[in-house]
């Protein structure tokens, strides 16, 4: 019933507007079309200048309302992202000036040069000097933007530092999985054909490869503060995208074509809670490439913490190999034979006798 009422009201509004419009047409015939036209011209000229003023005020007000909600007041949470923030500010400055000048000229001209009987339009078909001016000036400004932009772009997309921690992140419908290389610092090989859900090998890890035996498989990402981290990005099924808005980073996850990105976290999660004033703050991984019906729920969490906490967390994780094949867990057996060796020793022995 309520809906019918809404429909009736909407129809009524349309009918009223339509009738007014029709009536105004009759009025214009009575008043004389020339007179009505001039009157309309005045009204619309005035509305244009009002629109300009209210619009510029509205743009300022919108900024007041929402700038605080963007991620920019807190600054980038990664060292590399600072360059992107700087680039943004440079671009806003340049385009902002152009925006205000051109919009003001557009609506001001519309208002000022509206039809009048006392004026005549000025025959002004071209002027080479003017045209050269507004070819070269934009070209100069754009060159500046391109130079800055590409400088930052090559820095950000360049090779990751050698000491960077490597974490593999794999997207699938509709979640993220991480893999840490373990104590040997190397990720084991993968092959999608080895995917086996019942056994739990959901990433298709090649457990014939000894480098995979100490790899950790987690659903959360932990990162140490201040150390460069390189993400190796994979997808199982369709294209996903690792979006890290706080770190200003983004890279597609493409099945069959691994991609990478790297950055250096600047603030721990705890620090960000203070900076944002939001006790629930978490670094989120958003999927930024439509990937199916659960696209919007493909959320991952990154915890940035001190190196000590990070190492503690790593130590608390159990290698996937031992979870999937408990019988192969060498730590028990080996510890009986050699108790005073380093922790990598049992792995080395296993390499010889898989």
């Amino acid at each position, binding site marked *: 019933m309520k809906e019918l009422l809404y429909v009736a009201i909407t129809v009524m509004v*349309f009918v009223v507007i339509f009738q007014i419009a029709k009536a105004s047409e009759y009025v214009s015939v009575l008043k004389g079309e020339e007179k009505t036209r001039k009157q309309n011209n005045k009204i619309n000229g005035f509305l244009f200048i009002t629109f300009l003023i209210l*619009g510029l005020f509205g743009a300022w007000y919108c900024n007041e309302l929402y700038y605080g909600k963007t991620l920019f007041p807190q600054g980038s949470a990664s060292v590399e992202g600072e360059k992107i923030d700087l680039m943004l500010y440079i*671009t806003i400055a340049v385009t902002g000036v152009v925006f205000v000048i051109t919009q003001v000229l557009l609506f001001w001209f519309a208002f000022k040069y509206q039809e009048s009987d006392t004026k005549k*339009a000025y025959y002004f078909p071209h002027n080479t000097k003017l045209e050269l001016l507004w070819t070269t000036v934009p070209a100069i400004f*754009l060159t500046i933007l391109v130079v800055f932009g590409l400088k930052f772009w090559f820095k950000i997309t360049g090779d990751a530092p050698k000491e960077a921690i490597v974490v593999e992140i794999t997207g699938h419908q509709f979640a993220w999985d991480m893999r840490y290389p373990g104590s040997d610092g190397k990720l084991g090989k993968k092959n999608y054909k080895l995917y086996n859900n019942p056994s739990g090998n959901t990433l298709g890890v090649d457990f014939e490869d000894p480098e995979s035996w100490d790899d950790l498989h987690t659903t959360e990402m932990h990162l140490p503060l201040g150390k460069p981290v390189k993400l190796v990005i994979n997808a199982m099924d369709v294209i996903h995208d690792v979006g890290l808005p706080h770190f200003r980073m983004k890279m597609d996850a493409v099945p069959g074509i691994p991609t990478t990105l790297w950055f250096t976290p600047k603030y721990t999660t705890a620090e960000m809670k203070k900076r944002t004033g939001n006790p629930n703050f978490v670094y989120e991984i958003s*999927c930024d490439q439509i990937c*199916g019906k659960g696209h919007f729920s493909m959320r991952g969490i990154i915890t940035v913490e001190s190196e000590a906490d990070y190492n503690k967390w790593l130590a608390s994780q159990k290698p996937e190999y031992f979870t999937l094949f408990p019988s192969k867990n060498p730590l028990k057996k080996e510890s009986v034979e050699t108790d005073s060796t380093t922790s990598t020793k049992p792995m080395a022995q296993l390499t010889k006798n898989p």
Partner: protein
Amino acid sequence: MSTAILNETAQHEVHGEAHHEHHHQETFLTKYIFSQDHKMIAKQFLVTGIIWAFIGGLFSVVFRLQLADPNATYPFLEDFLGHWAKGGKLQPEFYYALVTMHGTILVFFVLTAGLSGTFANFLIPLQIGARDMASPLLNMLSYWFFFLASIIMLSSLFVQTGPASGGWTIYPPLSALGEASQGSKIGMDLWLVSMAMFIVSSLLGGLNYITTILNMRTKGMSMTRMPLTIWALFFTAVLGVLSFPVLLSGAILLLFDRNLGTSFYLSDIVVAGKIMPNEGGSAILFQHLFWFLGHPEVYIILLPAMGMSSEILSVNSRKPIFGYMAMVGSLFAITILAFLVWAHHMFVTGLNPFLGSVFVLLTLLIAVPSAIKVFNWLTTLWRGNIRFTPAMMFAIGFVSLFISGGLTGIFLGNSALDIHLHDTYFVIAHFHIVMGVASFFGLFAGVYHWYPKMFGRYLNNTLSYIHFWITIVGAYLIFWPMHYEGLAGMPRRYYDFSNWESFKNFGGLNQFISIIAMLVFAAQILFIINFFYSIWKGRKVTTLNPWNANTLEWTTPIRPGHGNWPGDIPEVHRWPYDYAKDGKDFIPQDVPVGDDESKH
């Protein structure tokens, strides 16, 4: 010599035309349905486009309901949509289907076919002085392939698994694998077949437009005397003819991957627990093929709006367009550059950073011809004597939106910034303003300006002004704040943001945007009412040249028949922008140059 021959054929046609009219009346079927008159075909494109625009717009209103309040239920939705809106709540699959169809419909069916199809058909013969298109038959087929594409796309809405739902860019593997998404089942095949038909339509049309412009201009109508509308429509057709076939090939390969077991785009995939046998393909290859059309497509949509706005700004400022040659040159530059920037949609696909840098440079280069156009439009207004006809209002609105949306392109085209902004609401704001709303403004400007020529009647002025003001204010209210959502990293194509710590504090804004979107949609209904009511009941046009314009279409009778001019086609003696020259308000193109006339 060629002009002489053309004139001869023209003479011949005049005769043939008179002969034709004398002997047999056109039937309803040949006049309104299978018409070969370019003016009727234009109207067919326009009306079909309006119907599609209504459907596409309605879809956006429905999915904006979901974004306004993800927890609300609307029982009436279930009445209309059935299991797609179980319990009055739009289901995610159907949300994505609506988003996908909204994009597909508006980009291709409305702003390509509806805009180019209408105005290229209507204006090219009338403004260059031709009796019809080079091939009226191909022209008719162009519409009917579009109609066929429309029917197939429409039918995909009614299949059980729903229409395509992988976004209008239909990236595989999502669009290639039925296991990955409901919408990638039969709905996707229908989408691809419909697009193939659409591309055929677009090619038939485009070839015809190019041939007509190059070969059938009346005597004296040299290329540099063509109105800017014709230049813009010419470059649009060139863009379409050179880029649409690439999408066609991309779509056919995708059909093969879907149905014949090939692996053009597929490799290393485990979907829904199933290990796929496909090996060796590249998902990124499709994106290259898609955007090789996809980017020129943006200009296919935008150039006609630019051309018509140039014409309308000049006519209603009562001043020549400023820098005609620079306007043509910048259209040409945009056309060339449009082919060389496609990978700026792919900065974060793992593209080689060096290759990316080349695309940054080429992308930002487009800003130069765009800046030239903007400043030339501003100078056209300067010291004019401006009449605010509804068409003029929309043309001014077009310039404003083109500035706003064009400038945010400088953000996205710069790869370093694109890393953060890619696939966020910033992108939505950018392309809706610059290509969506701006092109719509061009379309509206064109409809308001040439309506008297199309139907011999005027639209209601009051409704037109209401339509303009609600639309421009509403468009800015909807899309301006979206830039802020984008800066916050809010991703596109999310059904629900409420579980996201980073994005959930824009709830109030999303609600506001949805309400404004509904108001703007209502204003478009006003336009549609005005449009159809005025065809039969509008005030009749009583003068040949209601806007005092220079171009040739206003030398035809108020309601021109098939063949456009009852007698000879007028000869052209000057460019179309002799306004305010030598103290005369306007000098039409067919007026011979006087001895005492000054040169410009």
